[in-house]
């Protein structure tokens, strides 16, 4: 990968984040934002109001950091899965993690209202879903990958039915809308608390996948071929699944189900840098981070009430992706 591509991958999210800090119903100039940020590192004379400081530091900054982490995380998870399953239609929720985590969160909201317990439940049930998929597909050492996909479909279907069940019994006055909005994805209530819960897990998942980025090329090959390259195939597959699961479950726990990002961003990355996952994965992180950050900025500034993320990722993403697809013919062959 060329040096300037790597530089751009770092610079772009930072620039977009700085701009996004100033955008919203309460606009703040870029110099002010920089001053507020740097005042926490260097002693600077205070030329801004307390209001501005609160908006930047306590409301927008955690939200922006989460958008970057979730956007980047879901994209690297999606790219890893597309590589591993050798299938361009796969997204991070293919093994049922999102459905499981979504059910966990719904159950948490139903029983204990929103908050810490719902997030905890989301993580636990996300992992349960993967366990369930493993029980169906992975009991034999050499299960072919399509078995995992089928098992994931079964798991998703089961947990989606359970989500419907929680909705069905939920109080339609307050809990039903809370569950429904949560499942559409939102960073509207993002706080440092969310960042502390979700951030480390997402980062660990991203590091695992980033380290294995070249090995994912090998997983794209048919099983026997991959084995003949001397790699511990089953262990490698499960490490990738583990990393992607951490990211997906933690994302759902703090932001609900954010669709589309993990499916389309890896394609955009491949159109830019080719099919070698060694490059596709890091570039996906950068583009995914920028994409979700832009979407979330639109979500919180375009109307008085927040628009759920999954609606926007698809409404903005679909035409954009359609144009790319027509221009490049997919670009993955």
């Amino acid at each position: 990968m060329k040096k300037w591509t790597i530089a751009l991958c770092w610079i772009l999210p930072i620039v977009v984040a700085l701009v996004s800090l100033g955008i919203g119903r309460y606009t703040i100039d870029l110099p002010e934002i920089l001053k507020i940020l740097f005042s926490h590192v260097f002693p600077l004379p205070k030329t801004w109001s307390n209001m501005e400081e609160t908006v930047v530091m306590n409301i927008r900054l955690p939200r922006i950091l989460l958008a970057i982490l979730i956007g980047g995380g879901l994209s690297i998870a999606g790219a890893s899965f597309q590589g591993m399953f050798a299938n361009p239609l796969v997204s991070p929720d293919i093994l049922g993690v999102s459905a499981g985590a979504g059910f966990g969160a719904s159950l948490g909201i139903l029983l204990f209202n929103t908050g810490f317990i719902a997030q905890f439940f989301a993580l636990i049930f996300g992992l349960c879903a993967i366990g369930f998929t493993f029980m169906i597909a992975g009991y034999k050492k050499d299960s072919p990958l399509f078995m995992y996909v089928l098992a994931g479909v079964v798991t998703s279907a089961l947990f989606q039915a359970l989500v419907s069940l929680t909705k069905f019994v939920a109080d339609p006055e307050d809990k039903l809308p809370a569950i429904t909005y949560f499942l559409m994805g939102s960073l509207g209530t993002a706080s440092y608390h969310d960042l502390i819960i979700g951030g480390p897990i997402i980062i660990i998942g991203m590091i695992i996948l980033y380290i294995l980025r070249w090995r994912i090329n090998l997983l794209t090959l048919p099983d026997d071929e991959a084995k003949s390259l001397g790699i511990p195939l089953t262990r490698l597959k499960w490490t990738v699944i583990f990393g992607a699961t951490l990211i997906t479950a933690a994302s759902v726990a703090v932001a609900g189900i954010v669709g589309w990002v993990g499916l389309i961003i890896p394609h955009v990355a491949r159109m830019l840098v080719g099919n070698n996952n060694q490059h596709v994965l890091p570039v996906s992180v950068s583009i995914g981070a920028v994409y979700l950050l832009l979407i979330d900025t639109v979500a919180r500034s375009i109307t008085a009430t927040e628009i759920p993320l999954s609606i926007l990722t698809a409404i903005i993403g679909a035409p954009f992706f359609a144009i790319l697809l027509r221009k490049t013919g997919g670009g993955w062959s």
Partner: protein
Amino acid sequence: MKIEVQDGNYYYDHKREQRPNLYETDINFTLNNGEIMAILGPNGAGKTTMLKCITGLLEWKKGQTFIDDKPLKSYSRKEIWKRIGYVPQAHKMIFGFTIEDLVVMGRAPYISMLAKPSKKDYEAAYKSLEAVGILHLAKKSCNEVSGGELQLALIARTLVSDPEVLILDEPESHLDIQKQIIILQTIKKLSTEHGISCIINTHYPNHAFYLANHVLMTAKKKKVIHGKVREVMTEPQMKEYFGIELKKIIYEEDNYLLETMVPKELGQEKNIIF
């Protein structure tokens, strides 16, 4: 490197009732340095399965493989795949890697779990691309090149790990005649110049005549026979194993000899041809 199979046999778990032994008699052979063995047999005889068992991709249900007189299992996975190269049939890929990215994958046994290929690994990839004569295609996508070129790239991928044995599963089967010749010549060159032994599955008798030092022939409900090419591939035995009459044809010109076998059935009455 010497590769030896003693009393090897196999069955598929779900077909154990109907076919408790995939091979009518146990498989025994020894392959020495630089020798080429061809495996012949009709479809469904278990040729690909045999290759997988020999290399440990599948486990023999009976008997075992020895490498340099030590059981295959006593070697680590990395050790085995540094020394054995497995060449699958060329196939299209969903994501088109460039040829160089495809070939450098062969270095995997040398690259630590947490690392990615270094400059040295790419140099090894270029060297083996040169050895099979397609260095100029390094930057092309593997879905853009022809089937023959992709097959050569797959051979190159095994060469980057400096193997001592190549296992080739019908490498020439869906290629045009010219590409077949290139593949065969490449294999022969690797065995004579680099001392690499080869085990190759093939459907073509004349390819076995051209390449092989010895032949292993198998078919459903037929004993496994192993021996020198001319001893195994005789007209009566070919008829027995393939269920069709094959005629041996020898073409000689000065110092030059070509042997092949063709199915008699393909002949026609003379007055139809003229």
